Protein backbone atom coordinates (compact mmCIF):
# COMPACT_ATOMS: atom_id res chain seq x y z
CA UNK A 1 0.00 0.00 0.00
CA UNK A 2 2.63 2.52 1.11
CA UNK A 3 4.99 1.29 -1.61
CA UNK A 4 2.33 1.83 -4.27
CA UNK A 5 1.58 5.31 -2.89
CA UNK A 6 5.25 6.25 -2.99
CA UNK A 7 5.56 4.95 -6.55
CA UNK A 8 2.50 7.01 -7.50
CA UNK A 9 4.16 9.93 -5.75
CA UNK A 10 7.22 9.56 -7.97
CA UNK A 11 5.04 9.49 -11.10
CA UNK A 12 3.33 12.61 -9.76
CA UNK A 13 6.77 14.13 -9.20
CA UNK A 14 7.79 13.23 -12.74
CA UNK A 15 4.87 15.29 -14.03
CA UNK A 16 5.81 18.22 -11.77
CA UNK A 17 9.60 18.28 -12.08
CA UNK A 18 10.13 19.57 -15.65
CA UNK A 19 7.55 22.40 -15.38
CA UNK A 20 8.82 23.29 -11.89
CA UNK A 21 12.34 23.65 -13.28
CA UNK A 22 11.00 25.71 -16.20
CA UNK A 23 8.95 27.86 -13.82
CA UNK A 24 11.95 28.59 -11.67
CA UNK A 25 14.07 29.55 -14.71
CA UNK A 26 11.30 31.81 -15.97
CA UNK A 27 10.92 33.39 -12.54
CA UNK A 28 14.57 34.39 -12.80
CA UNK A 29 13.89 36.75 -15.68
CA UNK A 30 10.31 37.73 -14.83
CA UNK A 31 10.59 38.25 -11.05
CA UNK A 32 6.94 37.38 -10.52
CA UNK A 33 5.13 34.02 -10.43
CA UNK A 34 3.67 33.54 -13.88
CA UNK A 35 0.24 31.93 -13.43
CA UNK A 36 -0.06 31.45 -17.18
CA UNK A 37 2.26 28.42 -17.04
CA UNK A 38 -0.74 26.16 -16.43
CA UNK A 39 -2.29 27.44 -19.64
CA UNK A 40 0.91 26.69 -21.58
CA UNK A 41 0.65 23.13 -20.24
CA UNK A 42 -2.99 22.94 -21.37
CA UNK A 43 -2.11 24.25 -24.84
CA UNK A 44 0.63 21.62 -25.07
CA UNK A 45 -1.77 18.85 -24.10
CA UNK A 46 -4.35 19.89 -26.68
CA UNK A 47 -1.73 20.41 -29.40
CA UNK A 48 -0.56 16.86 -28.81
CA UNK A 49 -4.18 15.71 -28.93
CA UNK A 50 -4.75 17.56 -32.22
CA UNK A 51 -1.65 16.02 -33.82
CA UNK A 52 -2.18 12.51 -32.47
CA UNK A 53 -5.96 12.08 -32.66
CA UNK A 54 -7.28 14.68 -35.09
CA UNK A 55 -4.45 14.38 -37.62
CA UNK A 56 -3.82 10.74 -36.82
CA UNK A 57 -0.03 11.11 -36.67
CA UNK A 58 2.24 8.96 -34.49
CA UNK A 59 2.73 9.85 -30.88
CA UNK A 60 6.30 11.14 -31.23
CA UNK A 61 5.10 13.75 -33.72
CA UNK A 62 2.56 14.74 -31.07
CA UNK A 63 5.42 15.33 -28.61
CA UNK A 64 7.09 17.69 -31.10
CA UNK A 65 3.77 19.43 -31.71
CA UNK A 66 3.18 19.90 -27.99
CA UNK A 67 6.63 21.42 -27.50
CA UNK A 68 6.28 23.70 -30.51
CA UNK A 69 2.84 24.90 -29.41
CA UNK A 70 4.00 25.47 -25.82
CA UNK A 71 7.03 27.44 -27.00
CA UNK A 72 4.89 29.50 -29.39
CA UNK A 73 2.24 30.57 -26.83
CA UNK A 74 4.87 31.24 -24.17
CA UNK A 75 6.89 33.44 -26.51
CA UNK A 76 3.75 35.20 -27.80
CA UNK A 77 2.54 35.95 -24.29
CA UNK A 78 5.89 37.61 -23.57
CA UNK A 79 6.02 39.54 -26.82
CA UNK A 80 2.42 40.75 -26.69
CA UNK A 81 1.82 41.11 -22.96
CA UNK A 82 4.67 40.79 -20.47
CA UNK A 83 7.39 42.67 -22.35
CA UNK A 84 5.26 45.74 -23.09
CA UNK A 85 3.99 45.80 -19.49
CA UNK A 86 7.42 45.53 -17.88
CA UNK A 87 7.81 48.07 -15.07
CA UNK A 88 4.43 47.44 -13.45
CA UNK A 89 4.32 46.19 -9.86
CA UNK A 90 4.92 42.41 -9.59
CA UNK A 91 1.43 41.92 -8.16
CA UNK A 92 -0.17 43.72 -11.09
CA UNK A 93 1.79 41.51 -13.49
CA UNK A 94 0.71 38.47 -11.51
CA UNK A 95 -2.93 39.43 -12.10
CA UNK A 96 -2.09 40.00 -15.77
CA UNK A 97 -0.58 36.51 -15.97
CA UNK A 98 -3.83 35.10 -14.58
CA UNK A 99 -5.66 37.06 -17.28
CA UNK A 100 -3.36 35.46 -19.87
CA UNK A 101 -4.13 32.05 -18.35
CA UNK A 102 -7.87 32.75 -18.61
CA UNK A 103 -7.55 33.89 -22.22
CA UNK A 104 -5.56 30.82 -23.33
CA UNK A 105 -7.70 28.36 -21.40
CA UNK A 106 -10.94 29.83 -22.73
CA UNK A 107 -9.58 29.82 -26.29
CA UNK A 108 -8.97 26.09 -25.88
CA UNK A 109 -12.47 25.72 -24.46
CA UNK A 110 -13.91 27.67 -27.39
CA UNK A 111 -12.61 25.05 -29.82
CA UNK A 112 -12.75 21.87 -27.76
CA UNK A 113 -15.48 22.49 -25.16
CA UNK A 114 -15.12 21.10 -21.67
CA UNK A 115 -15.13 17.43 -22.61
CA UNK A 116 -12.60 14.92 -21.41
CA UNK A 117 -10.30 13.37 -24.03
CA UNK A 118 -7.40 10.97 -24.32
CA UNK A 119 -4.65 10.07 -26.78
CA UNK A 120 -5.10 7.40 -29.38
CA UNK A 121 -3.20 4.66 -27.59
CA UNK A 122 -3.91 1.00 -27.08
CA UNK A 123 -4.96 0.25 -23.52
CA UNK A 124 -2.64 -2.16 -21.83
CA UNK A 125 -2.66 -3.93 -18.51
CA UNK A 126 -0.43 -2.30 -15.92
CA UNK A 127 2.85 -4.11 -15.42
CA UNK A 128 3.81 -5.59 -12.09
CA UNK A 129 7.20 -4.83 -10.59
CA UNK A 130 7.89 -6.26 -7.15
CA UNK A 131 4.16 -6.26 -6.50
CA UNK A 132 3.71 -2.62 -7.57
CA UNK A 133 1.43 -1.65 -10.44
CA UNK A 134 2.78 0.69 -13.11
CA UNK A 135 1.53 1.31 -16.65
CA UNK A 136 3.78 1.55 -19.68
CA UNK A 137 2.84 5.22 -20.04
CA UNK A 138 3.84 5.93 -16.46
CA UNK A 139 7.21 4.31 -17.01
CA UNK A 140 7.70 6.48 -20.12
CA UNK A 141 6.77 9.56 -18.10
CA UNK A 142 9.38 8.73 -15.49
CA UNK A 143 12.09 8.26 -18.12
CA UNK A 144 11.24 11.30 -20.25
CA UNK A 145 10.93 13.52 -17.19
CA UNK A 146 14.26 12.40 -15.77
CA UNK A 147 16.02 12.91 -19.11
CA UNK A 148 14.55 16.40 -19.63
CA UNK A 149 15.36 17.53 -16.11
CA UNK A 150 18.92 16.27 -16.42
CA UNK A 151 19.36 17.96 -19.84
CA UNK A 152 18.13 21.29 -18.49
CA UNK A 153 20.43 20.98 -15.51
CA UNK A 154 23.42 20.26 -17.79
CA UNK A 155 22.44 23.15 -20.06
CA UNK A 156 22.28 25.60 -17.16
CA UNK A 157 25.49 24.43 -15.55
CA UNK A 158 27.91 23.74 -18.38
CA UNK A 159 26.94 25.51 -21.60
CA UNK A 160 27.66 29.11 -22.52
CA UNK A 161 23.99 29.85 -23.14
CA UNK A 162 23.05 28.33 -19.78
CA UNK A 163 25.58 30.47 -17.98
CA UNK A 164 24.31 33.52 -19.88
CA UNK A 165 20.75 32.64 -18.79
CA UNK A 166 21.79 32.45 -15.15
CA UNK A 167 23.78 35.67 -15.40
CA UNK A 168 20.82 37.46 -16.98
CA UNK A 169 18.49 36.17 -14.28
CA UNK A 170 20.85 37.24 -11.54
CA UNK A 171 21.63 40.73 -12.74
CA UNK A 172 20.39 41.76 -16.20
CA UNK A 173 22.26 45.08 -16.16
CA UNK A 174 25.60 43.54 -15.29
CA UNK A 175 25.08 40.71 -17.80
CA UNK A 176 24.39 43.26 -20.54
CA UNK A 177 27.52 45.24 -19.66
CA UNK A 178 29.54 42.03 -19.95
CA UNK A 179 28.30 41.64 -23.51
CA UNK A 180 25.49 39.13 -23.02
CA UNK A 181 22.68 39.91 -25.49
CA UNK A 182 19.91 40.30 -22.92
CA UNK A 183 16.92 40.22 -25.27
CA UNK A 184 18.14 37.20 -27.21
CA UNK A 185 18.77 35.27 -24.01
CA UNK A 186 15.31 36.22 -22.74
CA UNK A 187 13.65 35.00 -25.96
CA UNK A 188 15.63 31.76 -25.81
CA UNK A 189 14.56 31.28 -22.17
CA UNK A 190 10.90 31.80 -23.07
CA UNK A 191 11.06 29.35 -25.99
CA UNK A 192 12.89 26.72 -23.93
CA UNK A 193 10.54 27.00 -20.95
CA UNK A 194 7.48 27.09 -23.21
CA UNK A 195 8.66 23.88 -24.91
CA UNK A 196 9.07 22.23 -21.49
CA UNK A 197 5.56 23.32 -20.46
CA UNK A 198 4.20 21.97 -23.74
CA UNK A 199 5.96 18.66 -23.15
CA UNK A 200 4.54 18.59 -19.61
CA UNK A 201 1.11 18.99 -21.16
CA UNK A 202 1.76 15.91 -23.28
CA UNK A 203 2.98 13.93 -20.26
CA UNK A 204 0.02 15.04 -18.14
CA UNK A 205 -2.34 14.05 -20.94
CA UNK A 206 -0.65 10.65 -21.08
CA UNK A 207 -1.16 9.99 -17.37
CA UNK A 208 -4.41 11.86 -16.70
CA UNK A 209 -7.16 12.92 -19.09
CA UNK A 210 -6.95 15.89 -21.44
CA UNK A 211 -9.34 18.66 -20.46
CA UNK A 212 -9.09 22.48 -20.39
CA UNK A 213 -8.42 22.58 -16.65
CA UNK A 214 -5.49 20.16 -16.80
CA UNK A 215 -2.84 22.88 -16.53
CA UNK A 216 -4.59 25.02 -13.92
CA UNK A 217 -4.80 22.01 -11.60
CA UNK A 218 -1.05 21.50 -11.94
CA UNK A 219 -0.16 25.17 -11.40
CA UNK A 220 -0.21 25.19 -7.59
CA UNK A 221 1.71 21.91 -7.15
CA UNK A 222 4.29 23.28 -9.65
CA UNK A 223 4.60 26.48 -7.60
CA UNK A 224 4.84 24.43 -4.43
CA UNK A 225 7.67 22.33 -5.87
CA UNK A 226 9.59 25.38 -7.12
CA UNK A 227 9.15 27.36 -3.90
CA UNK A 228 10.00 24.34 -1.77
CA UNK A 229 13.23 23.91 -3.68
CA UNK A 230 14.01 27.59 -3.40
CA UNK A 231 13.30 29.76 -6.44
CA UNK A 232 16.15 29.78 -8.94
CA UNK A 233 17.57 26.30 -8.40
CA UNK A 234 16.89 23.54 -10.93
CA UNK A 235 18.10 20.79 -8.58
CA UNK A 236 15.99 22.25 -5.80
CA UNK A 237 12.92 22.28 -8.05
CA UNK A 238 13.45 18.59 -8.80
CA UNK A 239 13.74 17.73 -5.12
CA UNK A 240 10.73 19.95 -4.41
CA UNK A 241 8.74 18.09 -7.07
CA UNK A 242 9.58 14.74 -5.47
CA UNK A 243 8.56 15.97 -2.01
CA UNK A 244 5.31 17.55 -3.24
CA UNK A 245 4.50 14.55 -5.43
CA UNK A 246 4.91 12.07 -2.59
CA UNK A 247 3.21 14.35 -0.04
CA UNK A 248 0.16 14.64 -2.31
CA UNK A 249 -0.15 10.88 -2.51
CA UNK A 250 0.57 10.14 1.14
CA UNK A 251 -2.05 12.59 2.43
CA UNK A 252 -4.75 10.16 1.33
CA UNK A 253 -3.71 8.14 4.38
CA UNK A 254 -4.81 10.91 6.74
CA UNK A 255 -7.23 13.07 4.73
CA UNK A 256 -10.14 12.29 2.39
CA UNK A 257 -8.93 12.34 -1.25
CA UNK A 258 -11.15 15.34 -1.92
CA UNK A 259 -8.70 17.47 0.04
CA UNK A 260 -5.74 16.44 -2.14
CA UNK A 261 -5.95 19.73 -4.07
CA UNK A 262 -5.21 21.65 -0.89
CA UNK A 263 -1.94 19.81 -0.18
CA UNK A 264 0.14 21.99 -2.49
CA UNK A 265 -1.20 25.11 -0.83
CA UNK A 266 -0.67 23.74 2.65
CA UNK A 267 2.93 22.82 1.86
CA UNK A 268 3.61 26.31 0.53
CA UNK A 269 1.96 27.99 3.51
CA UNK A 270 3.61 25.95 6.24
CA UNK A 271 6.99 26.13 4.55
CA UNK A 272 6.88 29.86 3.94
CA UNK A 273 5.77 30.57 7.49
CA UNK A 274 8.91 28.97 8.84
CA UNK A 275 11.35 29.44 5.97
CA UNK A 276 10.20 32.44 3.91
CA UNK A 277 12.78 31.71 1.19
CA UNK A 278 12.07 28.03 0.64
CA UNK A 279 13.81 24.94 1.91
CA UNK A 280 17.07 25.51 0.04
CA UNK A 281 16.73 29.14 -1.01
CA UNK A 282 18.87 31.89 0.40
CA UNK A 283 17.58 35.16 1.74
CA UNK A 284 17.93 37.69 -1.03
CA UNK A 285 19.70 40.92 -0.38
CA UNK A 286 17.40 43.88 -0.70
CA UNK A 287 18.93 46.35 -3.11
Amino acid at each position, binding site marked *: MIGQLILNGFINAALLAPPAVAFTILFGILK*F*PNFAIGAYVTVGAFAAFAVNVQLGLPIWVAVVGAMAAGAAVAWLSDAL*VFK*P*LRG*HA*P*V*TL*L*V*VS*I*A*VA*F*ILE*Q*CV*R*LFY*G*GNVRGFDLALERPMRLWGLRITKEQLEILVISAVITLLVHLLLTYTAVGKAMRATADNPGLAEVRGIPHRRIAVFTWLLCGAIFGLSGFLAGLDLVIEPHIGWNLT*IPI*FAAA*ILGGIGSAGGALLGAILVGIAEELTVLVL*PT*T*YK*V*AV*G*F*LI*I*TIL*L*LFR*PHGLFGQAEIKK
Partner: protein
Amino acid sequence: MSAYLVAMATYVGFFMILALALNLQWGMTGMVNFGIAGFYALGAYASGILTAKAGWPVGFGMLAGAAVGAAAGALVALLSVRLRDDFLAIVTLGFAEVVRLICLNEDWLTEGPRGLKIDARPFGSVFGREDYALFYLALVATAVLAVFAVAEAIRRSPYGRVLRAIREDDVVASVLGKDVLVFRVATFAIGAMFMGLAGALFAHFIQNISPYTFLPTVSIFIWMSVIVGGAGNNKGLLVGAGVVMLILEGSRFLNDFIRVLDAEKLSSIRIILIGVLLIVILRFRPSGLMPEEKFKPTSD
Protein backbone atom coordinates in the same frame (compact mmCIF):
# COMPACT_ATOMS: atom_id res chain seq x y z
CA MET B 1 -36.07 42.36 -18.51
CA SER B 2 -36.34 44.94 -15.73
CA ALA B 3 -36.16 42.15 -13.15
CA TYR B 4 -32.93 41.11 -14.82
CA LEU B 5 -31.55 44.64 -14.63
CA VAL B 6 -32.40 44.88 -10.93
CA ALA B 7 -30.70 41.56 -10.22
CA MET B 8 -27.64 42.60 -12.21
CA ALA B 9 -27.41 45.92 -10.39
CA THR B 10 -27.56 44.03 -7.09
CA TYR B 11 -24.67 41.82 -8.25
CA VAL B 12 -22.69 44.92 -9.18
CA GLY B 13 -23.26 46.05 -5.60
CA PHE B 14 -21.64 42.91 -4.14
CA PHE B 15 -18.71 43.38 -6.52
CA MET B 16 -18.35 47.02 -5.49
CA ILE B 17 -18.18 46.18 -1.77
CA LEU B 18 -15.53 43.52 -2.46
CA ALA B 19 -13.55 45.94 -4.63
CA LEU B 20 -13.71 48.70 -1.99
CA ALA B 21 -12.50 46.21 0.61
CA LEU B 22 -9.60 45.08 -1.59
CA ASN B 23 -8.69 48.70 -2.25
CA LEU B 24 -8.43 49.29 1.49
CA GLN B 25 -6.05 46.33 1.80
CA TRP B 26 -4.03 46.64 -1.38
CA GLY B 27 -4.69 50.02 -2.97
CA MET B 28 -4.14 51.96 0.25
CA THR B 29 -1.96 49.71 2.42
CA GLY B 30 -0.18 47.57 -0.17
CA MET B 31 -1.24 44.23 1.33
CA VAL B 32 -1.82 41.50 -1.20
CA ASN B 33 -5.01 39.44 -0.81
CA PHE B 34 -5.97 36.84 -3.39
CA GLY B 35 -8.28 35.14 -0.90
CA ILE B 36 -11.26 37.44 -1.46
CA ALA B 37 -13.46 34.52 -2.45
CA GLY B 38 -12.60 32.85 0.88
CA PHE B 39 -13.70 35.76 3.06
CA TYR B 40 -16.77 36.21 0.84
CA ALA B 41 -17.61 32.51 1.33
CA LEU B 42 -17.01 32.65 5.10
CA GLY B 43 -19.43 35.58 5.45
CA ALA B 44 -22.03 33.85 3.29
CA TYR B 45 -21.79 30.49 5.04
CA ALA B 46 -21.60 31.99 8.53
CA SER B 47 -24.78 33.97 8.04
CA GLY B 48 -26.46 31.17 6.08
CA ILE B 49 -25.71 28.45 8.64
CA LEU B 50 -26.60 30.58 11.65
CA THR B 51 -29.97 31.60 10.20
CA ALA B 52 -30.92 28.37 8.44
CA LYS B 53 -29.61 25.86 10.98
CA ALA B 54 -29.36 27.71 14.29
CA GLY B 55 -32.43 29.85 13.76
CA TRP B 56 -30.72 33.20 14.30
CA PRO B 57 -32.51 36.35 13.09
CA VAL B 58 -31.18 37.59 9.73
CA GLY B 59 -29.72 40.80 11.12
CA PHE B 60 -27.58 38.95 13.65
CA GLY B 61 -26.59 36.41 11.01
CA MET B 62 -25.27 39.18 8.76
CA LEU B 63 -23.38 40.79 11.63
CA ALA B 64 -21.89 37.39 12.42
CA GLY B 65 -20.88 37.02 8.76
CA ALA B 66 -19.00 40.30 8.93
CA ALA B 67 -17.43 39.34 12.28
CA VAL B 68 -16.25 35.95 10.99
CA GLY B 69 -14.73 37.72 7.98
CA ALA B 70 -12.89 40.15 10.25
CA ALA B 71 -11.59 37.40 12.54
CA ALA B 72 -10.34 35.31 9.61
CA GLY B 73 -8.77 38.43 8.09
CA ALA B 74 -6.88 39.23 11.29
CA LEU B 75 -5.65 35.65 11.48
CA VAL B 76 -4.46 35.53 7.86
CA ALA B 77 -2.78 38.92 8.25
CA LEU B 78 -0.99 37.87 11.45
CA LEU B 79 0.24 34.64 9.91
CA SER B 80 1.53 36.18 6.73
CA VAL B 81 3.21 39.46 7.66
CA ARG B 82 6.67 38.07 6.95
CA LEU B 83 5.93 36.98 3.40
CA ARG B 84 6.91 38.74 0.22
CA ASP B 85 4.10 39.97 -2.01
CA ASP B 86 4.11 37.20 -4.59
CA PHE B 87 4.28 34.39 -2.04
CA LEU B 88 1.53 36.08 -0.04
CA ALA B 89 -0.57 36.00 -3.20
CA ILE B 90 -0.20 32.22 -3.39
CA VAL B 91 -0.82 31.71 0.34
CA THR B 92 -4.03 33.80 0.35
CA LEU B 93 -5.22 32.06 -2.80
CA GLY B 94 -4.62 28.81 -0.94
CA PHE B 95 -6.57 30.05 2.07
CA ALA B 96 -9.60 30.65 -0.15
CA GLU B 97 -9.27 27.24 -1.77
CA VAL B 98 -9.10 25.54 1.63
CA VAL B 99 -12.24 27.40 2.73
CA ARG B 100 -13.96 26.30 -0.46
CA LEU B 101 -12.85 22.68 -0.05
CA ILE B 102 -14.18 22.65 3.51
CA CYS B 103 -17.53 24.00 2.30
CA LEU B 104 -17.51 21.33 -0.41
CA ASN B 105 -16.62 18.38 1.82
CA GLU B 106 -18.12 19.01 5.25
CA ASP B 107 -21.67 18.11 4.28
CA TRP B 108 -22.95 17.99 7.84
CA LEU B 109 -22.35 21.70 8.18
CA THR B 110 -22.60 23.19 4.71
CA GLU B 111 -24.68 20.67 2.73
CA GLY B 112 -21.66 20.33 0.43
CA PRO B 113 -22.10 20.53 -3.35
CA ARG B 114 -25.91 20.42 -3.13
CA GLY B 115 -25.84 23.91 -1.72
CA LEU B 116 -27.17 25.42 1.47
CA LYS B 117 -30.76 26.58 1.22
CA ILE B 118 -31.44 29.78 3.12
CA ASP B 119 -35.05 30.85 3.58
CA ALA B 120 -34.47 33.79 5.89
CA ARG B 121 -34.58 37.19 4.21
CA PRO B 122 -34.37 40.61 5.81
CA PHE B 123 -37.92 42.06 5.94
CA GLY B 124 -39.03 39.12 3.84
CA SER B 125 -42.66 39.34 4.91
CA VAL B 126 -43.01 43.08 4.41
CA PHE B 127 -42.61 43.29 0.63
CA GLY B 128 -44.25 41.49 -2.27
CA ARG B 129 -42.21 39.55 -4.80
CA GLU B 130 -41.67 42.39 -7.29
CA ASP B 131 -40.99 44.99 -4.64
CA TYR B 132 -38.66 42.74 -2.71
CA ALA B 133 -36.05 42.72 -5.48
CA LEU B 134 -36.10 46.52 -5.49
CA PHE B 135 -35.92 46.64 -1.71
CA TYR B 136 -32.89 44.35 -1.74
CA LEU B 137 -31.20 46.47 -4.38
CA ALA B 138 -31.77 49.49 -2.14
CA LEU B 139 -30.37 47.57 0.83
CA VAL B 140 -27.23 46.57 -1.11
CA ALA B 141 -26.88 50.10 -2.48
CA THR B 142 -27.02 51.45 1.09
CA ALA B 143 -24.34 48.98 2.09
CA VAL B 144 -22.18 50.07 -0.86
CA LEU B 145 -22.58 53.72 0.13
CA ALA B 146 -21.80 52.96 3.75
CA VAL B 147 -18.65 50.99 2.88
CA PHE B 148 -17.65 53.71 0.42
CA ALA B 149 -18.12 56.38 3.11
CA VAL B 150 -16.00 54.42 5.59
CA ALA B 151 -13.30 53.78 2.97
CA GLU B 152 -13.20 57.46 2.00
CA ALA B 153 -13.14 58.53 5.65
CA ILE B 154 -10.17 56.23 6.24
CA ARG B 155 -8.42 57.52 3.13
CA ARG B 156 -8.72 61.16 4.23
CA SER B 157 -7.92 60.57 7.88
CA PRO B 158 -4.49 60.56 9.55
CA TYR B 159 -4.96 56.77 9.79
CA GLY B 160 -5.16 56.62 6.00
CA ARG B 161 -1.97 58.65 5.68
CA VAL B 162 -0.18 56.12 7.86
CA LEU B 163 -1.50 53.32 5.62
CA ARG B 164 -0.10 55.03 2.52
CA ALA B 165 3.19 55.56 4.32
CA ILE B 166 3.32 51.82 5.09
CA ARG B 167 2.51 51.07 1.46
CA GLU B 168 5.34 53.24 0.18
CA ASP B 169 7.94 52.18 2.76
CA ASP B 170 7.13 50.28 5.93
CA VAL B 171 10.59 50.88 7.40
CA VAL B 172 10.14 54.65 7.24
CA ALA B 173 6.69 54.31 8.81
CA SER B 174 8.04 52.27 11.71
CA VAL B 175 11.00 54.63 12.17
CA LEU B 176 8.43 57.39 12.56
CA GLY B 177 7.02 55.47 15.50
CA LYS B 178 4.02 53.81 13.82
CA ASP B 179 3.28 50.25 14.87
CA VAL B 180 3.21 48.82 11.35
CA LEU B 181 1.99 45.37 12.43
CA VAL B 182 -1.06 46.75 14.25
CA PHE B 183 -1.99 48.99 11.32
CA ARG B 184 -1.60 46.14 8.86
CA VAL B 185 -3.59 43.57 10.83
CA ALA B 186 -6.36 46.05 11.66
CA THR B 187 -6.71 47.24 8.07
CA PHE B 188 -6.68 43.73 6.65
CA ALA B 189 -9.35 42.74 9.19
CA ILE B 190 -11.54 45.73 8.28
CA GLY B 191 -11.29 44.82 4.59
CA ALA B 192 -12.08 41.16 5.33
CA MET B 193 -15.03 42.29 7.47
CA PHE B 194 -16.50 44.12 4.46
CA MET B 195 -15.92 41.02 2.34
CA GLY B 196 -17.75 38.92 4.95
CA LEU B 197 -20.60 41.42 4.96
CA ALA B 198 -20.81 41.26 1.17
CA GLY B 199 -20.96 37.46 1.44
CA ALA B 200 -23.79 37.60 3.98
CA LEU B 201 -25.76 40.04 1.82
CA PHE B 202 -25.17 37.76 -1.16
CA ALA B 203 -26.28 34.64 0.74
CA HIS B 204 -29.67 36.05 1.69
CA PHE B 205 -30.13 37.45 -1.80
CA ILE B 206 -29.41 34.26 -3.72
CA GLN B 207 -30.87 32.04 -0.95
CA ASN B 208 -28.91 29.01 -2.08
CA ILE B 209 -25.16 29.07 -1.71
CA SER B 210 -22.84 26.36 -2.98
CA PRO B 211 -19.04 26.08 -3.05
CA TYR B 212 -19.13 26.58 -6.82
CA THR B 213 -20.06 30.22 -6.30
CA PHE B 214 -16.83 30.97 -4.49
CA LEU B 215 -14.26 29.94 -7.08
CA PRO B 216 -10.88 31.72 -7.24
CA THR B 217 -12.16 33.48 -10.36
CA VAL B 218 -14.24 35.75 -8.08
CA SER B 219 -11.04 37.00 -6.42
CA ILE B 220 -9.43 37.53 -9.81
CA PHE B 221 -12.36 39.51 -11.19
CA ILE B 222 -12.22 41.79 -8.15
CA TRP B 223 -8.51 42.32 -8.68
CA MET B 224 -9.16 43.15 -12.30
CA SER B 225 -11.88 45.61 -11.25
CA VAL B 226 -9.49 47.43 -8.94
CA ILE B 227 -6.65 47.51 -11.47
CA VAL B 228 -8.92 48.61 -14.32
CA GLY B 229 -10.61 51.26 -12.17
CA GLY B 230 -7.41 52.57 -10.60
CA ALA B 231 -5.85 51.23 -7.42
CA GLY B 232 -6.07 53.66 -4.53
CA ASN B 233 -9.04 55.54 -5.97
CA ASN B 234 -12.36 54.51 -4.42
CA LYS B 235 -14.47 56.16 -7.11
CA GLY B 236 -12.39 54.65 -9.89
CA LEU B 237 -12.84 51.13 -8.70
CA LEU B 238 -16.60 51.52 -8.48
CA VAL B 239 -16.35 52.26 -12.20
CA GLY B 240 -13.97 49.30 -12.62
CA ALA B 241 -16.35 46.93 -10.83
CA GLY B 242 -19.19 48.22 -12.99
CA VAL B 243 -17.24 47.70 -16.22
CA VAL B 244 -16.07 44.18 -15.34
CA MET B 245 -19.56 43.17 -14.21
CA LEU B 246 -21.10 44.70 -17.32
CA ILE B 247 -18.89 42.50 -19.51
CA LEU B 248 -19.44 39.43 -17.31
CA GLU B 249 -23.20 39.70 -17.01
CA GLY B 250 -24.27 42.30 -19.57
CA SER B 251 -23.17 40.25 -22.54
CA ARG B 252 -25.89 37.77 -21.60
CA PHE B 253 -28.20 40.37 -23.17
CA LEU B 254 -26.43 39.92 -26.44
CA ASN B 255 -27.64 36.38 -26.49
CA ASP B 256 -31.24 37.55 -26.39
CA PHE B 257 -30.75 39.46 -29.61
CA ILE B 258 -28.24 37.48 -31.62
CA ARG B 259 -28.40 33.75 -31.18
CA VAL B 260 -25.23 32.84 -32.99
CA LEU B 261 -23.29 31.32 -30.16
CA ASP B 262 -24.30 28.81 -27.55
CA ALA B 263 -24.11 29.75 -23.89
CA GLU B 264 -20.87 27.88 -23.29
CA LYS B 265 -19.02 29.63 -26.12
CA LEU B 266 -20.40 33.00 -25.06
CA SER B 267 -19.14 32.45 -21.51
CA SER B 268 -15.66 31.73 -22.88
CA ILE B 269 -15.74 34.88 -24.98
CA ARG B 270 -16.81 36.94 -21.95
CA ILE B 271 -13.80 35.83 -19.94
CA ILE B 272 -11.46 36.37 -22.90
CA LEU B 273 -12.88 39.90 -23.27
CA ILE B 274 -12.21 40.74 -19.63
CA GLY B 275 -8.65 39.45 -19.88
CA VAL B 276 -8.00 41.48 -23.03
CA LEU B 277 -9.59 44.57 -21.43
CA LEU B 278 -7.22 44.33 -18.46
CA ILE B 279 -4.15 44.04 -20.70
CA VAL B 280 -5.25 46.87 -23.02
CA ILE B 281 -6.05 49.22 -20.12
CA LEU B 282 -2.72 48.56 -18.44
CA ARG B 283 -0.97 49.16 -21.75
CA PHE B 284 -2.58 52.50 -22.50
CA ARG B 285 -3.64 53.76 -19.06
CA PRO B 286 -1.07 52.21 -16.72
CA SER B 287 -2.69 53.64 -13.58
CA GLY B 288 -6.21 52.55 -14.50
CA LEU B 289 -9.21 54.56 -15.68
CA MET B 290 -9.14 56.87 -12.66
CA PRO B 291 -5.66 57.05 -11.10
CA GLU B 292 -5.17 57.70 -7.40
CA GLU B 293 -5.41 61.37 -6.51
CA LYS B 294 -2.10 62.79 -5.46
CA PHE B 295 -2.02 63.99 -1.88
CA LYS B 296 -2.14 67.78 -1.84
CA PRO B 297 -1.21 69.55 1.37
CA THR B 298 -3.89 72.07 2.24
CA SER B 299 -2.48 75.58 2.07
CA ASP B 300 -3.80 77.94 4.63
